[in-house]
C-alpha cells in the first residue's frame, strides 16, 4: 500500500524541480513578504534612532530613547524630574542640553524627514501607476513647485495658518496645468508629460523666487534655496504633526489602494474591464496625491526625485504588485530621506546642504537610466 503511494507523492515535486530552474524566476528575492515588511520597519526605527545621534553632541542610541521615554512620561530620566544628579553627564540621566538637542532639535527634524520621504515615495508610486509613466514623480510633474509657490504666496501675505491648504491648491493647480498642457500636445505619453511638467515646474519655481525676492526681509537667497531645493532645517514639532498627519491620513488611504492600482497594469481599458471606474479612481487618487504633496512641501520645500527613485528601486526588489509595492516604497522612502537629510546636515558641518541637492545627485542618474531603458519606446 505505502509502496504504491510513494512514487506518486514524489513525482510532483520532482517534476516541479525539473521545470523551474530552467526559467528565469520572477519571485525576486524569494523572501516572504511579512519578513520584508518587518525588516523595513526595523530598518526605519534603527535609522531614526541612529540619525538623531549624528552631529556635534555626543549622543548614543540609548540617550535618544531615554529622552523619548521621558517626554512620553514612560521614564524618570527627564532632567528636573530625576533629581540633582541629572545636570551632570552621569550614566543614568541625560543632560538638559542633550535632552533639548534630541527632543527640540533633532527628533522633529528626523521624524519630518521620515514622513516626507514616505509620502513622496508613495505619491511617486501612485502617479507612476495611474499614468503608466515610469517617470512620474511629484517633483518632475511640477506638483512640488506648485505647492512651494502656494506656500510662499500665503507666507508673504502673513497667512501662515493656511500654509498646507495653500500648498495643496498650488500642487493641484500645477498638476492640472501639467496634464492639460501635455494633453494639448497629443496623447499623454511619459515624455510629453515630463516636458509639460518641466515647463510648469520652472514657471512655478521662477514665481516662487520672485515672490520671495520681492518680499524678503532677511536672507532671501537662503529662503529661495530651501523652498526650491528642499530643506528640513526648520523642522519643528508642528512640521511633524503636519507631515506625519498627512502620511497617516492620506498616505495610508493611498497605500491601501494597491488592489485597484494593480488593475491598471495593462492600461485603462483593461482596468475598466475589471470593473474599475477609471475616471473617478484617477481623479480621486490624483487629488489625494496633490493633497499629500502639498502638506509635505509646506514642511520641507520641494525635495526632488524621491518619488522617482524609491518606487523604482522597490519594484526591482519585490516586483510590481502594488499591495506590497506601495507600503514598502513608503517605508524605504522614509529611511532614505532620514539618511539623505542626515548626510545633508553633517557632511560639510558646520555648513548645511539643501537636501534636494543630494537627492538630485542620486535621482538624476536614475532618471537617465530609466530614459535609457525606454530608448526603444516612442516619445
Amino acid at each position, binding site marked *: 500500500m505505502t509502496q504504491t503511494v510513494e512514487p506518486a507523492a514524489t513525482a510532483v515535486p520532482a517534476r*516541479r524541480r525539473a*521545470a*523551474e530552474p530552467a*526559467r*528565469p*524566476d*520572477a*519571485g525576486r528575492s524569494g523572501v516572504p513578504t511579512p519578513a520584508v515588511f518587518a525588516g523595513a520597519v526595523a530598518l526605519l526605527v534603527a535609522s531614526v534612532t541612529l540619525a538623531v545621534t549624528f552631529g556635534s553632541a555626543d549622543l548614543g542610541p540609548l540617550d535618544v530613547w531615554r529622552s523619548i521615554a521621558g517626554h512620553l512620561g514612560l521614564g524618570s530620566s527627564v532632567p528636573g524630574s530625576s533629581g540633582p544628579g541629572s545636570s551632570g553627564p552621569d550614566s543614568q540621566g541625560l543632560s538638559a542640553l542633550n535632552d533639548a538637542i534630541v527632543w527640540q532639535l533633532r527628533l522633529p527634524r528626523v521624524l519630518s524627514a521620515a514622513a516626507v520621504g514616505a509620502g513622496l515615495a508613495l505619491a511617486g508610486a501612485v502617479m507612476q501607476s495611474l499614468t*503608466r509613466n515610469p517617470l512620474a514623480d511629484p517633483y518632475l510633474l511640477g506638483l512640488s513647485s506648485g505647492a512651494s509657490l502656494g506656500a510662499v504666496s500665503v507666507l508673504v501675505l502673513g497667512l501662515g495658518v493656511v500654509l498646507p491648504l495653500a500648498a495643496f491648491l498650488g500642487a493641484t493647480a500645477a498638476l492640472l496645468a501639467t496634464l492639460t498642457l501635455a494633453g494639448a500636445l*497629443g*496623447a499623454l505619453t511619459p515624455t510629453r508629460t515630463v516636458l509639460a511638467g518641466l515647463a510648469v515646474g520652472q514657471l512655478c519655481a521662477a514665481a516662487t523666487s520672485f515672490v520671495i525676492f520681492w518680499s524678503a526681509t532677511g536672507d532671501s537667497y537662503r529662503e529661495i534655496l530651501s523652498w526650491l531645493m528642499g530643506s528640513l532645517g526648520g523642522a519643528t514639532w508642528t512640521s511633524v504633526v503636519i507631515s506625519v498627519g498627512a502620511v497617516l491620513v492620506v498616505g495610508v488611504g493611498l497605500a*491601501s*489602494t494597491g*488592489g*485597484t492600482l*494593480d*488593475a491598471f*497594469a*495593462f*492600461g*485603462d*481599458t*483593461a*482596468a*475598466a*474591464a*475589471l*470593473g*474599475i*471606474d*477609471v*475616471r473617478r479612481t484617477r481623479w480621486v487618487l490624483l487629488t489625494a496625491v496633490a493633497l499629500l504633496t502639498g502638506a509635505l512641501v509646506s514642511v520641507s520645500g520641494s525635495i526632488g526625485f524621491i518619488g522617482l527613485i524609491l518606487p523604482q528601486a522597490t*519594484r526591482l526588489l519585490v*516586483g*510590481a*504588485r502594488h*499591495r506590497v509595492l506601495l507600503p514598502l516604497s513608503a517605508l524605504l522612502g522614509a529611511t532614505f530621506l532620514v539618511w539623505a537629510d542626515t548626510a545633508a546636515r553633517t557632511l560639510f558641518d558646520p555648513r548645511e546642504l539643501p537636501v534636494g541637492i543630494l537627492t538630485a545627485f542620486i535621482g538624476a542618474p536614475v532618471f537617465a537610466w530609466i530614459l535609457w531603458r525606454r530608448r526603444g519606446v516612442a516619445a
Partner: protein
Amino acid sequence: MTLQVDRARWEVDGALILDGVDVTVPTGSVGALLGPNGSGKSSLLRLVAGVGGAVPSAHGPGRTSGVVTLAGADLRGMRPRERARRVALVEQEGASDVALTVRDVVMLGRTPHRSRWAPDSSQDHAVVDRALAAVGMTGFARRAFPTLSGGERQRVQLARALAQEPALLLLDEPTNHLDVQAQLTTLDLVRRSARAGTTALVALHDLNLAAAWCDHVVLLSRGRVAAAGAVEEVLTPDVIDPVYGVRTTVLRHPATGRPVLTFAPGAPAVLGAPGVAAVG
C-alpha cells in the same frame, strides 16, 4: 447566457463608428465578429464590455447608445464591478513590460469579485489554479510575464479572463501575431469554455479560423452589419466579395466538411455602398 445587442451606436465627432448594430450570440456558443480594418469590431467589443467611454480617444469618448443584454440583464446600466463579474474582455496584445508574475496577472481577474482591501482568499487561489490549468500554464505560474512568448501571454490573458468567472467572454483578435499552433490552441480554449457555458464573441481577421471554429458570424462593414448568421450562410462569395474587395472561392475541408476560403484580388470594396442585406 445569450448576448443580445440592439441598435448599438457610437458617434465620435459626428462620425459613426457603429451605426445601428444588432448582434445575437446564443448561450454557450462562439460568435465570430468579422470585417475589414476599421469596420468597428473592436469598438463593438468595447461597447459590450462597457469600457468605451472610459478611455478618452484623441477626440474624447464620443456618444454611445443601444441596448446590450446578457440573459436579459441590461449590461450598460450595470455598475462597472457588477458587469465585470459577468463579462471579461481579452484585448489585442497589450503591454508586456509589466513586472508581474503569471500568477499575479491571472489574479487580476479576481478584482471584481472581492472587496478592495481583502487579501487573496483561498477561493481566489483555487479559481486562479483552475484558470491556469485550463489554459495549460500551471507550470508557468511563477514566471515573469514579460519573459513569455506571444502565444503564452495570450493564454495567460485568457486565464485572467477565465478567473473573472464570466458568463460572456469577449476577445479582440486573440490570434494576432501568434503562430499557427498557438492560434489553434487559443481558439480551442475558447471553444472549450463555451462548452462549459461561457458564451464567446471573438473578433477575427482570419475568415478561415472563423469558418473552422465558430458557430455564428457577424460581418461588419463601416460600422454596420453587412451580414449575420450561420457560418455556411455568411461565408459565401456573394457576401464576402463586396465587403473585402476580393474574389472568394469556397472549398470544403475533406475531414470536417467546414468551409475553407481562398481569395484572389477582386474589384476594390464598394466603400460608399450600404451593407449587403443580412442573410438568415
